[in-house]
């Protein structure tokens, strides 16, 4: 590590004012701070110790927490590819196929998003903020594996510009950029983002297919009332079901959740509230039941295991920028996400999955929730103050 530090110090003067690469100072800074916390965490004067947990390291922890879901996703992609072909394959073969399919998604996602962000920094001349570090990793995990790469690139450019830069950059965005990117894909290219052909690698153009194989996601089956085709609860939990790359395995996501909660990066209140919200409406639907809509009978806890629910709850809803900021607001925000997800899934036949739309909608409402929570607090205290003066 010392050698790297020395090298950075050696090339640093080139990027200072008057140096050779003065224009690239922001780019240089961003790479330097990626490796080292800028400035001292323990200054020589005074008693203050600054937290080394700055934005960049927060982001790094989220990326770390995404690794289990990513690795499982890679294997699952390969697993379903060979299952679809009806061929036997070893664990390594499956994993390698998945890795070859998923890595380009990650590279393109980062290249497009970061490229756009660097361009804006270059034009505006402010410092690079590393908001896209997480978004760039999230996007490949929430799209179907067969989505064309140029679409991912376009969606990321759109999300960075319209979702973030127009509002003032990282930390100012109203909606989650990764979800905006997915929403763009979903509405712009529905044929590549939904249906039962896109979730398994190579299924769209496959010439041969194993007998009885279906690439439909469990949620699509449930929405179509095809309840016999549902996987076992164990499969749902482990994640051996078709779906977006990183969202299928509840187990891998729970490992990520543990990392986020242990380091205090994500709010446990939001996660808990979302689960409670989904369970309560799910149970209500179970109790009401319906002759025509078989989805209503699906046990409520399965909502937590299927589709993007776990992934969205852990990694998307808890985004500290777009979520509610007040403590009571977090409960309301999370609870409503859970309720809306189940509502969209069960009652709207056009959308088998509602996680993306639910989080985006609540992202928009989060400031309003905060506003009324704060106002409620003020009123409560005012009342108390008046009682005492009497």
């Amino acid at each position: 590590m010392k050698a790297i530090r020395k090298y950075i110090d050696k090339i640093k003067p080139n990027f200072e004012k008057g140096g050779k690469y003065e224009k690239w100072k922001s780019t240089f800074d961003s790479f330097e701070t990626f490796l080292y916390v800028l400035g001292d965490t323990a200054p020589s004067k005074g008693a203050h110790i600054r937290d080394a947990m700055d934005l960049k390291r927060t982001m790094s922890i989220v990326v770390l927490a995404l690794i289990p879901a990513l690795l499982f996703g890679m294997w699952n992609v390969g697993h379903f590819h060979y299952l679809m072909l009806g061929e036997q394959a070893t664990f390594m073969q499956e994993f390698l196929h998945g890795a070859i399919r998923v890595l380009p998604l990650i590279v393109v996602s980062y290249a497009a998003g970061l490229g756009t962000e660097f361009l804006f920094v270059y034009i505006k001349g402010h410092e690079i903020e590393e908001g896209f570090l997480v978004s760039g990793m999230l996007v490949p995990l929430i799209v179907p594996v067969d989505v064309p790469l140029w679409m991912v690139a376009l969606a990321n450019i759109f999300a960075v510009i319209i979702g973030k830069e127009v509002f003032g950059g990282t930390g100012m965005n109203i909606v989650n950029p990764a979800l905006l990117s997915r929403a763009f894909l979903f509405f712009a290219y529905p044929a590549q983002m939904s249906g039962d052909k896109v979730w398994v690698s190579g299924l769209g153009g496959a010439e041969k297919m194993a007998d009885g194989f279906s690439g439909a996601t469990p949620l699509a089956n449930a929405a179509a009332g095809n309840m016999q085709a549902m996987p076992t609860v164990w499969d749902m939990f482990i994640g051996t079901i078709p779906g977006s790359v990183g969202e299928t395995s509840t187990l891998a996501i729970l490992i990520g959740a543990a990392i986020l909660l242990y380091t205090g990066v994500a709010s446990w209140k939001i996660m808990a509230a979302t689960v409670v919200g989904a369970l309560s409406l799910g149970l209500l639907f179970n109790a009401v039941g319906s002759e025509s809509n078989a989805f209503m009978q699906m046990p409520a806890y399965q909502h937590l295991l299927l589709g993007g629910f776990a992934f969205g709850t852990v990694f998307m809803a808890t985004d500290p920028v777009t979520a509610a900021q007040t403590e009571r607001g977090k409960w309301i925000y999370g609870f409503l996400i859970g309720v809306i997800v189940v509502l969209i899934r069960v009652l709207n036949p056009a959308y088998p999955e509602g996680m993306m739309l639910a989080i985006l909608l609540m992202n928009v409402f989060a400031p309003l929730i905060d506003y009324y929570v704060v106002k409620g607090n003020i009123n409560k205290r005012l009342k108390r103050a008046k009682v005492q003066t009497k």
Partner: protein
Amino acid sequence: MGLLSTKDTKLITNPMNLENPITVQVLGVCSALAVTVKLEPALVMAISVTAVTAFSNVIISMLRNTIPNRIRIIVQLVVVAALVIIVDQILKAFVYDVSKQLSVFVGLIITNCIIMGRLEAFALGNKPWPSFLDGVGNGAGYGMILIIVAIVREIFGSGSIWGISLIPQSWYIANGGFYANNGFMILPPMALIMLGVIIWVQRSRTKELIGK
């Protein structure tokens, strides 16, 4: 322009730029979202609105000294409604297909804020000729934005321009290619985002508009 004095020229050019009804005054946005999926209806709409704005401006300007102040809105509405019906009939007679595509939005020209805005702000206090120019200018400023938005939306949303396909059929995914039209472009939210981008570009180019 030899025909027009400098002051008259300004009446036409200002609404195209610094006083654009859509991007600066943010009027008439509703119809701008609705009719800009393709270029042809957008152009017809632009011409229709220009005609209605110009002629209603002239008529109100001629009547301006006889209209009692308290009922001026209803008088304006009658004039605009009559002109819109004429435009609607002409469209039905000569470009029936486009008229069907525009459907209710031709009738809704009556409620277009730009027209009422110009009548209130300009025609009631100016002579017919400047009023006519003002109407033409504002209609053109409105139409210009409509056409820009429509061109972008038609190219990326339908892969064509004026109904002529720009993208070879073999490029499409359905035919074994790699391309797909952007379905989001056809939806109204994208038109709103496009308008936002146009406003953004205009504001970053003209410093006078910033910081008001």
